C-alpha cells in the first residue's frame, strides 16, 4: 500500500537518535540518514574479511528501515561498507545537507530516491521565488551513477523539463515518479516522461505548480505508448490546463493494472462515467469536478453514474469533487461502505448535503472536508466514522477574518466519536481550551495535532484566557505525539509545557505566539527529539536563538521569520557552529551594501556540504 501524501509529511523513520543517547561521533549529521563513517577511499580489507562482508551483505539486504540501517552502518568499517552496498532507498530530508556526489559515492546501488528541498513555509509564500532546491545537480549525479534507479520522489524541489528529460534518458528501468509541491516543469516534460519511460508504473503529480502558458500546452496524455502499459497510478489533478480526454480514455482502456486515477477539473461527470467504465478495477479515484457538463434537467446521467459506482467494487478512496453539484452525490452511495479514504476538501457542502453520504461511511479512516459542513456536519462524522484515524478540516474562505462554521463544538463532537484518531488538522475561528482538553483525553493515540485558529492571538472564546491550558493537555495526555502546530493566544507558559511534556515531538510549528525569549528556550531545551522547528511572527530574539546552540546539530532545520532576530545573534550562531548553514533571507535587496541589522527570515540547517554555491542575491549565508 503506497504512502499517501499525509505520510510524506511525517518522516517515520528518521534514524535520528534521542539527544542524550551515547553518540559514536560528536559531529554526526543525519540528514542523509546515512550515519557516520570512515573516510571514503580507505584500503580494501583482507580476504577473510571480504567473505564476512559478503555474508553480511546478504543479511543486510533484509534490513529496510532507515534507522536500523544507520545503526548498522555505525558498527564498524566492514558493516559500513556492507550497508552502503546493500542500501536500496536513499532518503535525503534536506537537499542541501549533503552534496550529490558524496551521496552517490557512498551508496552505489540505489533504486529509489526520496529528496526534499524547500522548507515547508515555502508553501505559504514565505520563501522568495528562486531560493533554490534545484533538482538539476542531483539528477545529473544520479544519471551518471544509478543505472538501476526505479523510483524518484521529490518534495518542494524545483524541477525543470530538462531534468525530466534526463530522467527519461538515464534510467532504463524507471518506474515511479512522484512530485509533491514541486515547480518549474511543464506538460512538455510530462510528455517526455510519458513517451520514453516504457516501464512507467506511477506518475503522481501532487499539488505541483506547472509552468504552462495557455498556448504552449503539450498533449502529454497522447504520448504514452500505444501498447498495453504497466501504469498503476496516474495522478494529475494539479495539472490545471486542459488535456486530451479521448486519449486518456484510450490510455485507461489499455492499462489493465491501473488502480489509482485522479484527473483534473476538466472532467465532468459524463466523462467520468466513461473512464470508470474502462477501469472498474480502480481502488483510488479522483473525480476532478463533480458536475454535469450540461445544464440542469437536460440529461440525467444519474442512472449511469450509479451503475458506474456500483460496478466499482474495489474503490476505497475517493477525492476530487470540485464544483460539486450535490444532487449527484447519491451516485456514490454504493461505494460508501467500502471507503477508507474520502476527500471532500474541495467540495462546498452543507451539513445536510454531507449527512446522507457520511452516514454510510462506516469504514472511513481518512476524511478531508471543508468547514462549510459546520459543527453539525462534524457531528455526523463523529457518529458515523468510529474508525477514523485522520481528519482534516479546511477553511472554505481561507482568510483571517472569515466566518468559519466550525468551532470548539465540532472538535468536541469529533473527540467523542472518533476515539482512534491519530492525526488532525483543524482550521477554525473559535476554540476553547475545554474542547482541546477533551480531545487530549478522548484521543490518546494522537500522533499529529495541528490546530489553526485563523484569527491571530485569539483566546478561549468562552473564558477569554490564553490557549495554554489546551495545548498543555495535548502534550501531557497524547503520549505518542510527534507533530504539533499551535495557534491562538499563547503565552510562554504554553512553551514551557511543550518543552516539559513534548518529549517525542519532532516537528513543531509556531505562529504569532509567546511572550519572550523564554518561550523558545523552553522548547529548545525540553524537546529532545525536535527535528524541524518553524516559527513565524513570534517575539523570540537573539538570546533564545543562541540558547539553542547545543541542539542545532541534532535537528534538521530551524526556520524563524518575523521574529526579533538580528545579524549579531545569527552571526554568533554561524561562528560557533561550523557545520550549520545559516541563511538570512531578505525580501527586497537593497542597492547599497549597507547591512540591515534586523533579520527578517532565518533558515538554518546542519550540513555536510557547507555553504551552498547556488545562492541567489537575496540570500546571505553567514
Amino acid at each position, binding site marked *: 500500500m503506497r504512502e499517501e501524501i499525509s505520510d510524506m509529511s511525517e518522516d517515520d523513520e528518521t534514524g535520528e537518535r534521542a539527544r542524550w543517547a551515547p553518540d559514536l561521533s560528536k559531529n554526526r549529521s543525519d540528514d542523509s540518514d546515512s550515519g557516520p563513517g570512515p573516510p571514503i577511499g580507505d584500503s580494501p580489507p583482507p580476504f577473510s574479511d571480504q567473505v564476512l562482508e559478503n555474508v553480511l551483505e546478504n543479511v543486510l539486504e533484509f534490513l529496510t528501515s532507515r534507522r536500523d540501517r544507520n545503526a548498522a552502518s555505525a558498527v564498524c568499517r566492514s558493516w559500513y561498507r556492507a550497508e552502503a552496498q546493500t542500501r536500496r532507498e536513499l532518503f535525503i530530508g534536506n537537499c542541501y545537507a549533503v552534496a550529490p556526489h558524496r551521496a552517490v559515492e557512498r551508496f552505489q546501488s540505489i533504486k529509489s530516491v526520496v529528496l526534499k528541498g524547500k522548507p515547508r513555509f515555502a508553501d505559504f*509564500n514565505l520563501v522568495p521565488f528562486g531560493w533554490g532546491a534545484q533538482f538539476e545537480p542531483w539528477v545529473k549525479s544520479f544519471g551518471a551513477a544509478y543505472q538501476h534507479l526505479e523510483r524518484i520522489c521529490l518534495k518542494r524541489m524545483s524541477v525543470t523539463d530538462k531534468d525530466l528529460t534526463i530522467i527519461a534518458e538515464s534510467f532504463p528501468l524507471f518506474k515511479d515518479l512522484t512530485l509533491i509541491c514541486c515547480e518549474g516543469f511543464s506538460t512538455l516534460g510530462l510528455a517526455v516522461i510519458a513517451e520514453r519511460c516504457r516501464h512507467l508504473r506511477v506518475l503522481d503529480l501532487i499539488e505541483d505548480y506547472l509552468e504552462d502558458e495557455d498556448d504552449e500546452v503539450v498533449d502529454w496524455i497522447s504520448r504514452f505508448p500505444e501498447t498495453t502499459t504497466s501504469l498503476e497510478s496516474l495522478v494529475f489533478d494539479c495539472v490545471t490546463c486542459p488535456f486530451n480526454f479521448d486519449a486518456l480514455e484510450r490510455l485507461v482502456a489499455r492499462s489493465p493494472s491501473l488502480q489509482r486515477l485522479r484527473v483534473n477539473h476538466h472532467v465532468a461527470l459524463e466523462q467520468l462515467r466513461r473512464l470508470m467504465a474502462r477501469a472498474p478495477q480502480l481502488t483510488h479515484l479522483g473525480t476532478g469536478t463533480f458536475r454535469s457538463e450540461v445544464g440542469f434537467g437536460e440529461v440525467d446521467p444519474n442512472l449511469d453514474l450509479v451503475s458506474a459506482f456500483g460496478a466499482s467494487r474495489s474503490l476505497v478512496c475517493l477525492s476530487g469533487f470540485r464544483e460539486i453539484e450535490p444532487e449527484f452525490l447519491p451516485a456514490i452511495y454504493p461505494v460508501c461502505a467500502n471507503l477508507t479514504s474520502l476527500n471532500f476538501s474541495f467540495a462546498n457542502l452543507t451539513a445536510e448535503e454531507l449527512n446522507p453520504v457520511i452516514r454510510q461511511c462506516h469504514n472511513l479512516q481518512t476524511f478531508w472536508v471543508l468547514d462549510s459542513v459546520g459543527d453539525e456536519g462534524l457531528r455526523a462524522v463523529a457518529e458515523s466514522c468510529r474508525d477514523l484515524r485522520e481528519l482534516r478540516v479546511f477553511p472554505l474562505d481561507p482568510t483571517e477574518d472569515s466566518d468559519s462554521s466550525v468551532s470548539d463544538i465540532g472538535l468536541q463532537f469529533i473527540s467523542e466519536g472518533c476515539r482512534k484518531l491519530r492525526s488532525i488538522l483543524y482550521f477554525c475561528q473559535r476554540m476553547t481550551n475545554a474542547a482541546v482538553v477533551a480531545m487530549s483525553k478522548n484521543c490518546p493515540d494522537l500522533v499529529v495535532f495541528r490546530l489553526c485558529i485563523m484569527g491571530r492571538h485569539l483566546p478561549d472564546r468562552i473564558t477569554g484566557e490564553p490557549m495554554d491550558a489546551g495545548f498543555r493537555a495535548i502534550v501531557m495526555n497524547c503520549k505518542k505525539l510527534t507533530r504539533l502546530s499551535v495557534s491562538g493566544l499563547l503565552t510562554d507558559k504554553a512553551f514551557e509545557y511543550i518543552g516539559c511534556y513534548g518529549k517525542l515531538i519532532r516537528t513543531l510549528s509556531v505562529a504569532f505566539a509567546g511572550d519572550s525569549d523564554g518561550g523558545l528556550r523552553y522548547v529548545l531545551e525540553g524537546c529532545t527529539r525536535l527535528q524541524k522547528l518553524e516559527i513565524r511572527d513570534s517575539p523570540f530574539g537573539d538570546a533564545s536563538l543562541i540558547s539553542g546552540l547545543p541542539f542545532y546539530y541534532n535537528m534538521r532545520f530551524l526556520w524563524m521569520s518575523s521574529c526579533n532576530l538580528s545579524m549579531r545573534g545569527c552571526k554568533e550562531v554561524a561562528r560557533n557552529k561550523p557545520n550549520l548553514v545559516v541563511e538570512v533571507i531578505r525580501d527586497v535587496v537593497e542597492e547599497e551594501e549597507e547591512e540591515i541589522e534586523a533579520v527578517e527570515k532565518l533558515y538554518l540547517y546542519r550540513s555536510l556540504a557547507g555553504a551552498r554555491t547556488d545562492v541567489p542575491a537575496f540570500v546571505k549565508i553567514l
Partner: protein
Amino acid sequence: MSVETERSSTESEVSGLDYEETALTLRLPGGTSRVAGSEPDRKRGFSETVELGLGSGAPVGTRGVGSTDDQSDESPESQASVAEKPPAPKARVVGWPPVRSFRKNVMKSCKLVKVAVDGAPYLRKVDLEAYTGYHQLLTALQEMFSCFTLRNYPDEERKLVDPVNGTEYVPTYEDKEGDWMLVGDVPWKMFVESCKRVRLMKSSEAVNLAPRAQHS
C-alpha cells in the same frame, strides 16, 4: 467630464468602504479582467498576485530580486483580499492562514461572466466571485465603463446613468434558464450561482423585465 470628478461625486453615494476598495486595487489600463482573477493559474499561482493585476506575474510579496513593484510589497495580500470582503481591521500578513496556494486557487473558483453595455462595442469580463455583494459589483461596473455614475433610487432600484446624455442603464443578467432578470432581485449568492452574463440595458428597453420574476 473627468473621471475624477465623477468618482468624487459618487463618493457620497458609494460608501467610503467601497471607494477604498476600488481605489486600492491596482489595475492595468483596461486590464479589468486581471483584477477579476481571470488567470488564477498565473505564474506562481498566488491569488494575491493575480488580484493585483500586475503584469509581471512574479509574486510581489515574495520576489526577492529587482522587483520593480517595491512599493506594492507593503501589503499585497491586504489589497488582494480587499476585493473579496470589506476591509479587515488588521493588516493582512503573508501566508496566513497557512493554506497552500493550490488550495486557495481551487477554492477561489472563478465565476467569470461577460458584461455588455448597450451601444458599446466592447465586452468586459468580471469575476463575480471577487465581489461580496451587489454594491461592489455595480461600483466595479461603473468603474469599468467609466462613463456612468451610480445612483441609488429611493425604491432601491439601482441604475447606472450616463451623465453626458442622461441615459439610464439598468443592469440585467441572463440566468441559467436563459431568462433575463434585473440585477439585484435575488440574494447575492443565488445571483452568483445562476448568472451567466450581464447586460447593461437601456432603461427604456428594460420595461419588459418583471422585477422579482423568478422561480424559487
